[in-house]
């Protein structure tokens, strides 16, 4: 009897259900898409933040003070300590290896070049060789990882804002790229394609030391100190300084979790469980420790400017999005509740007839609630599918890649739909139970 009544209600008067069903579908679609985006957004924004460049700086532990101005290290080559690039593959073996997005070693070498355009303070001397600093680095270098694979990294990953006109140097070739400002100051004709004769600093200032010819393949513009310098492959600067395979600084770009009160604590004072939790969370401090463990003798510093900004902005945007999501859920709940309430109100006549022929309040409520529940499940499921599609479009529009489908959300959305649909009809149903059937049927 109950089932038949329910079935009849759907078959006989589908138009009356349309409003609630439509509200359910639209409401749950919005809820699904905002939840999907909010769940995904932390990871995606963290990846986006890597465009600010590296957030960790690795230097030798027992180093002398760097004499660094504007990003160029002016220390002589025989001073300070070095690290070996052969060890770098180990970075991809740490616990959070997949969070290491990229790393780039740097070795600055003072050298001299022949120039047709010497700076004013050197002009007038015959064939003066101008002292310059060569910045040795990787652009796109394949690093062998101990597990047999190769990892491609370099400035292309850690310094994505560097722009090149022409092409980058080959990573082992005798080639170089020059900074934009340097090219403007020292070359009359187009710089690309010319050969730069580089002399190690030990060579005589005048005369015919044996030069290393470097072909200029491009002009780089970075908006920083590199605009004034010459960039060469790390192998070239290693050979020039007689330290093949060595480097002084390593910039590491890692995906991290924003710092919180837990990550600020001293790991040495944690209990073993807390320590495990800290070690197994991608905090910048735990990733630093893991890098120190695989590269002994290094100091790992957080580039605070980048890391702190990332942490603050990420946690704020995350919170903001959750609030917007809550608002979306609220609006969806409101839409569904309001429409269910109106449909129940609209059907007061029906309630009156049912009660007049002897239906109890609980039977009337049962029928209506069962109806709402079935509507909620069907509408919620359809809304979930629509919302997942919407989230894909949103993800693709904002981040370039569609958001992944989360099946976990399906029961959440269905439950939410059922709760709001039933809650929305409860109040008018309660009021309906107080009514006498006679006035309702009279239309009062």
């Amino acid at each position, binding site marked *: 009897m109950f089932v038949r009544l329910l079935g009849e209600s759907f078959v006989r008067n589908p138009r009356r259900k349309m*409003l609630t069903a439509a*509200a359910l579908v*639209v*409401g749950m679609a*919005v809820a699904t898409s905002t939840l999907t*985006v909010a769940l995904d957004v932390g990871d995606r*924004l963290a990846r*986006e933040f890597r*465009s*600010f460049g590296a957030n960790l700086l690795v230097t030798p532990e027992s180093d*002398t*003070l*760097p*004499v*660094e*101005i504007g*990003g160029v290290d*002016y220390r002589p080559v025989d001073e300070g300590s070095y690290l070996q690039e052969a060890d770098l593959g180990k970075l991809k073996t740490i616990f959070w290896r997949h969070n290491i997005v990229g790393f780039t070693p740097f070795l600055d070498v*003072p050298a001299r070049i022949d120039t047709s355009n010497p*700076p004013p*303070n*050197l002009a007038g001397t015959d064939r003066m060789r*101008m002292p*310059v600093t060569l910045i040795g680095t990787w652009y796109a270098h394949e690093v062998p990882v101990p597990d047999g694979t190769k990892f491609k990294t370099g400035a292309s990953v850690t*310094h994505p*804002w560097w722009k090149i006109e022409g092409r980058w140097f080959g990573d082992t070739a005798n080639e170089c790229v020059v900074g934009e400002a340097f090219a403007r100051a020292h070359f009359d004709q187009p710089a690309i394609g010319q050969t730069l004769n580089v002399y190690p600093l030990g060579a005589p200032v005048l005369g015919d030391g044996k030069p290393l010819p470097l072909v200029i393949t491009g002009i780089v513009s*970075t*908006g*920083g100190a590199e605009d*004034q310098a010459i960039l060469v492959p790390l192998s070239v600067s290693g050979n020039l300084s007689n330290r093949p395979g060595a480097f002084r600084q390593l910039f590491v770009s890692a995906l991290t979790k924003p710092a919180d009160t837990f990550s600020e604590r001293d790991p040495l004072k944690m209990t073993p469980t807390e320590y495990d939790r800290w070690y197994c969370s991608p905090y910048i401090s735990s990733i630093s420790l893991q890098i120190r463990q695989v590269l002994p003798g290094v100091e790992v*510093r*957080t*580039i*605070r*400017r980048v890391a702190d*900004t990332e942490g*603050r*902005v990420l946690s*704020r*945007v995350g919170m*903001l*999005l959750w*609030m*917007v999501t809550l*608002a*979306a859920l609220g*609006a*969806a709940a*409101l*839409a569904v509740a*309001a*429409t269910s309430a*109106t449909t129940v*109100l*609209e059907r007061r006549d029906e309630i009156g007839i049912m009660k007049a022929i002897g239906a109890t309040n609980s039977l009337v409520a049962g029928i209506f609630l069962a109806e709402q529940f079935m509507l909620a499940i069907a509408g919620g499921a359809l809304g979930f599918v629509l919302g997942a599609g919407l989230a894909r479009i*949103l993800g693709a*529009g*904002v*981040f370039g890649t569609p958001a992944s489908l989360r099946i976990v959300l399906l029961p959440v959305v269905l439950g939410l739909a059922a709760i709001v649909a039933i809650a929305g009809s409860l109040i008018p149903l309660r009021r309906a139970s107080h009514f006498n059937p006679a006035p309702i049927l009279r*239309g009062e």
Partner: protein
Amino acid sequence: MFARLLWKLLRGSRGRLAVAAVALVSGAAVISALLNLDLGVEHQLTQEFRTLGANVVVSPRQRATVTDAAPAVPVLMGKEAVIEAIERTRTSSVIAAAPYLYVIARRANTPLVVAGTWLDETPKLEPTWKLEGEWVTSREDSQRCLIGRNVARQFRLAPGAPLELKYFDRSARLTVAGVMDAGGAEDSQVFVSLPMAQYLAGKEGMIGLAQLSVTGSAQSIAEYAARLAKLLPGDDVLPIRQVTEAEAAMLHRIQLLIVSMVALILLLTALCVLATMAALAMERRADVGLMKALGGSIARIVGLFLAEVGVLGAAGGLIGCVAGVALSYWMGERVFGASISARWEIFPLTTGLMVIVALGGALPLRLLGKTKPAVILRGE
């Protein structure tokens, strides 16, 4: 007559109107809160991004030339001209600005990069630095300095310790005010007052570069840099690309994300209110039928209903707006720790939207005008 009928209707059907009013008020609240938040969020986020430090640098067009005598003899520029230009273009979007002069001095026999600057601007320019000890709060204070973490470790210095710096035949005795943890090249540098660095280098009135922290969109920063560059024809005024480009891209994405989510919610809320109003209108169909049967004009019924929902929409919109602005205050406080100021354009915008949506709900009533009265009165 019309006004009395309207009043009776509003008072009479309180129960039915309650649902519609709740929908209107909460819809308006959500919409106005999100609109207010969305308008305020760019401002708040660009403020957040200022922790990245300086994003505009003024430097001489021809920079470092290297000689044999010293590792670097940078080309310098006159301090007065640069400072005057900065002061003349200064707006509220310039958070901090400071001139810098770098000298490679020695402590005992170790070369050390000494940066002379306005130490009182440093905390604003570098909000992420962690300091042990205290900041130097006066730019005239030439006796005290800030030292980097690595310098402190190398020479075993703590706040309060003396530090003597030498540059050829000139020397300076300073007191360490604080040790900074910057997470960058500054960890190996000593920060002194600008006059002290100028004295050490023997370059009175000269600076090497000036750094500015400017808030705003990438475009407004570029515009500011262009204005400053016009006053300084001999120098380069460049936005630091690493910072400005990434920041602009990031802001764009966050904005797009929030705007699209807000648009979805707006649509949903409007639909919800529309549906409720349509249901409310349908309840009036008996009146329409009766009016038509009596030979009256349907325009009158529709007019009454429109007035009714119009009043409802305006009242609901206004009340919702107040609630929504309060909600966005709270949200701004929670998320950014700063209150988001109310935009007055929100009020007419939201109220107008609510009235339009409410009136749109009367559409089905208009359609009823074409039906025969008997059909309506039979309740089909």
